């Protein structure tokens, strides 16, 4: 017997309806905004993105010194001398301009590497978690071996044999490849774990028993429900990638001059550290605070997206 709709509507029961429905993502956003450090980090990253996008324009219009031009009249000067707000380096190049232009390398590495890792780790993790069996076994054995070896050493070995010449974004390709190669394993393992636990939940069971095809099941149920931890892992991967690129540059096997990068600037500044300590301090702080900003964002996202952390 069907209830007449009108009768239900007519019975004006005062249901307790919350003022507004809050979904998971909206709730996460509210929680993220409440985390002051995370907002600070997000602000800093936004500022850096603006700097990276705008500084080539500023150089083009002459508002910012050319990062490659050598000012022979002021070599290794401290901040504020001869109109160089942050001083100059050992070749007389403007430190502020080099810092601002150098941000594009760090940000590109940090953000794009995650774009490479995401599809690879996701696909393999989903396959291993959902289908299990041989794919799963292979992945797990592989990760065991992979975890026994530190990222930095592997990236160094790869970069020592595979280098490309050309503009900085071409030189970045081997570095991208090396970092992605060491990082997709962690993501795949995480996705696998998520899928394994969600696969047993009742709603997946219900969907499966009502005849949902596997692909739809993965895309509609497994993927959206494991997205939170995936986003957090990818966010924490950003500072890691930036760190690896900076270390490569610092060790002299990263992006080659003339393109300035922060790691390379620390290395250059190191050669004349007694004459001009600020040449080391500025790029070092730029790297440190960028990494700090990303890890604040990561912490904020984890607190916002992980329901088990709720207090």
């Amino acid at each position, binding site marked *: 017997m069907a209830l007449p709709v009108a009768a239900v509507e007519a019975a004006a029961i005062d249901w307790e309806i919350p003022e507004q429905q809050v979904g998971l993502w909206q709730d996460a956003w509210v929680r993220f905004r409440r985390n002051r450090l995370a907002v600070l980090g997000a602000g800093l990253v936004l500022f850096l993105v603006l700097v990276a996008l705008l500084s080539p324009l500023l150089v083009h219009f002459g508002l910012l010194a050319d990062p490659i031009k050598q000012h022979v009249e002021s070599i290794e000067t401290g901040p504020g001398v001869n109109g160089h707000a942050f001083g100059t380096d050992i070749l007389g190049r403007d430190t502020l301009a080099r810092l601002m232009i150098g941000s594009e390398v760090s940000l590109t590495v940090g953000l794009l590497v995650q774009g490479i890792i995401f599809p690879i780790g996701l696909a393999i993790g989903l396959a291993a978690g959902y289908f299990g069996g041989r794919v799963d076994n292979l992945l797990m054995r592989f990760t065991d071996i992979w975890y026994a070896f530190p990222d930095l050493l592997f990236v160094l070995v790869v970069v020592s044999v*595979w280098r490309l010449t050309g503009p900085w974004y071409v030189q970045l390709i081997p570095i991208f490849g090396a970092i992605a190669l060491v990082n997709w394993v962690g993501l795949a393992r995480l996705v696998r774990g998520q899928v394994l636990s969600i696969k047993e939940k009742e709603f997946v069971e219900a969907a499966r028993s009502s005849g949902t095809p596997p692909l739809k099941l993965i895309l509609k149920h497994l993927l959206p429900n494991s997205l939170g931890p995936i986003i957090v892992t990818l966010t924490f991967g950003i500072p890691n990638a930036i760190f690896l690129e900076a270390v490569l540059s610092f060790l002299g096997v990263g992006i080659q001059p003339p393109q300035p990068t922060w790691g390379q600037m*620390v290395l250059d500044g190191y050669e004349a550290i007694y004459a001009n300590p600020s040449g080391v301090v500025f790029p070092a702080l730029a790297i440190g605070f960028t990494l700090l900003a990303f890890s604040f964002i990561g912490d904020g996202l984890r607190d916002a997206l992980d329901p088990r952390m709720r207090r």
Partner: protein
Amino acid sequence: MAVIAGRPKRGALLPKRVTAVTDSRLGSLGVFVIRRILWMIPVVFFVIVITFILMHNAAGSPWDKAGGRQLSQVVVDNLNKKYGLDKPVFEQFLLYLWNVLHFDFGLSYQYQGKSVVTLIGEGWPYTATIGTLAFLLIVPVGIGLGVLAALRQNTRVDYATMGFATLAASFPNFVIGALMVVLFSVLTYKWTGGNFFLPAGGWGIDDHLIMPVITLSLLPIAYTARLTRASTLETIRQDYIRTAWAKGLPERLVVIRHVLKNSLIPVVTTLGPTFAFLVTGSVIVETVFSIPGIGRAFVVAVTSRDYPMILGTTVLFSIVIATANLIVDVLYVFIDPRVRLT
């Protein structure tokens, strides 16, 4: 277990089985350790295969000079012959494996007439000294800070400790090293007129060690402190801790006898990653402070494409880390009787 009907015969399995049950943990521990040791073999083998393949598909040859006159073809051929590079790749690989089994990693391309084993032997004391000192600093400081922060949760002590840990975990160690050099070598030298400062680099069993060891240990300290804090927080919520307080034990005893003992079990697992941190850290710290250890030698080998040296150090590093992980796993089984041996 099959049920044996009737009176057991002489030498039946029954008594043996009883002792077997009581000894089972020790016995399966033996099997576990052997399995873990055997597992190291494919790990190290895989590392060798990967690095070997990478090295031999590298563009250019190790005899390429950076600009200027190149070596003549005759010289290159002779060098290739000397270092066995004229043989087929598969044969080279088998030869290399065979040599590795005999602790022979070949001759360095970079330093004429020196073997990789000699070079590693020369660098080893420096790296081991810094690593050991850092390890001795990491364990007490990391655990101490973590326990302190947990016992004073949500106070200024907690916030200060965790703030420090976040900073130390985010700032890369070459940045920390460079900033420390600026602060403690360059600026203090200028301010005190050369009276009180730390040396910016070089080697010596004295104040030369202070900055490298601190730089190397900051990241693992932060990592250990965070994990100890989380694990201690979990422990002090347990019923047996409430019982310990309730029976009137003084704080010192509650902390040492009950909290520490139980919260340190998961902390043991961080010792594995700590070794990995120390190995990768040595690469950076030895470069920053110009210490002639293995890490520095690895960087030099990478920049000059000294393939035997890269292969040798990589294999050595992977053996060190795999051994550290093995020890941690076995230690864990000993400390925590709840761990299942699989």
